[in-house]
């Protein structure tokens, strides 16, 4: 806590400076709203009458659904491509090619396929989360040293045993790094997905606020999104630490 005190002080100083500049220079609330005004909107959004919660719920659900879907499919595809050499050689150029396509650019076509609303956003989010998991799983599977592979061969392990008990655990730190990338991208995917085709959620609310020229509400929404991102990221870290507890025991004594 003591170490974080300077960062906290910096934040307060910045907010105070911002408030002072806005008030003294008379900057229009349309351009940059005062922090006090932003917090007032945030307060009414979260406490009374609490109109933000429904949007937070929608965006949170889209993010987590898309994240879970994209990560699981990416992980499984990574396992298959990592283990089946001919398939990897066949598909790798396409995987690379699709990775270069900006996934958000596919939003409009998803709206044609899946309609406006949650499904399109979840699909975009899943697609964004798919690639980091695919790539990190494939890389992670190579992490086991040749000696450990020889050990498993010496012990007469079958391919699935080597995969489950050597390659996946060895690659877990790399795979979890992919998960951390994915959770951050998932929120971006959900918010931008709502920009394109959402009627509810924090991203859709930003577009609505833009329509009403309500910059103060937009800033309040930024804060809500940032807080949600931090929360998800911290949760991922906790899960990662739990999964990697065996490794961590080796480093902390």
């Amino acid at each position, binding site marked *: 806590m003591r170490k974080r005190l300077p960062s906290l002080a910096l934040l307060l100083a910045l907010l105070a400076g911002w408030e002072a500049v806005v008030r003294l220079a008379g900057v229009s609330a349309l351009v940059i709203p005062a922090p006090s005004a932003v917090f007032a909107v945030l307060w009414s959004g979260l406490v009374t009458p609490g109109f933000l919660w429904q949007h937070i719920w929608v965006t949170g659900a889209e993010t987590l659904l898309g994240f879970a879907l994209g990560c699981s499919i990416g992980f499984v595809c990574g396992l298959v491509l990592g283990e089946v050499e001919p398939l990897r050689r066949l598909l790798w150029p396409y995987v690379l090619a699709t990775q270069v396509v900006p996934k958000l650019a596919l939003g409009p076509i998803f709206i044609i396929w899946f309609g406006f609303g949650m499904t399109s956003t979840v699909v975009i989010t899943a697609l964004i989360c798919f690639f980091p998991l695919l790539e990190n799983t494939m890389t992670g599977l190579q992490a086991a040293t040749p000696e*450990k592979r020889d050990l498993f061969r010496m012990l007469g392990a079958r391919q699935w045993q080597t995969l489950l008990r050597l390659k996946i655990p060895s690659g877990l730190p790399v795979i979890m790094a992919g998960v951390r990338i994915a959770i951050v991208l998932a929120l971006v995917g959900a918010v931008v997905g709502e920009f394109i085709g959402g009627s509810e959620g924090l991203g859709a609310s930003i577009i609505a606020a833009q329509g009403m020229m309500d910059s103060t509400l937009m800033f309040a929404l930024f804060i809500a999104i940032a807080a949600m991102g931090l929360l998800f990221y911290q949760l991922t870290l906790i899960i990662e630490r739990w999964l990697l507890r065996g490794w961590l025991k080796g480093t902390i004594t």
Partner: protein
Amino acid sequence: MSTDTAFFSVDRVSHAYEDGTAVLRAIDWSIPAGAFHCLVGRSGCGKTTLLKLVAGLVQATEGGVRIEGQAIQGPSPKVGFVFQAPALLEWLSVIDNVLLPISLHRRVQVADRGTAAELLELVGIADLAKRHPGQLSGGQQSRAALARALVTSPPALLMDEPFAALDAITREELQDDLLRLVALRRTTVLFVTHDIAEAVYLGDRVAVMDQGKIALTTSIDLAKPRACDCRYDPHFTAHCQKIRAAMTLHTVELD
């Protein structure tokens, strides 16, 4: 050499890399059951390849290896392997690492845990059973790897410079512990090393490998069980000199 009582028989084994570079040239060797053979050579002389061939991890280009008269097709459950690096799984505790050879094939039973605990006692790290590999020193990791190789009580052990990365004192301790353990179980051992003194101290018989051929084989007639002070015996030094000479023979010829 009679091959009747041999545990390992290596019959005219040659091996080449895929690009055709010869690594091993027509090696013949037999190791009687219960014997401790050492193979010394410089790095890159093919000794690790020979060990992997005997283990069944590498297929010979020509010739073959037999274990108790049976030609090998791949890794045999009769053979334990100790690698250059301890190769412990970081996410498992020491005791679970030791139990790995069992847990890969069947459910671990209480009796197995007993065996593993006993082995950890024998290699002197019984109090570290619940620790993780990252919390162990290099010597302790090597001890755990040795216990893992012995947990299924294999009749033979193949060892690839297992103590090379350890400091001199730790290495001597581990050498004595190894000799004690394999004498207790009458384990057949093929031990690869680049350290001449280590080979002479451990082996009943030492072979020198040079450029893919066995340049010399010699029996070591030092008293068993070995004691630490035998390293300073003139006999010991004589053996070392003889082996050293065989290792440098071709460079001498070039001069």
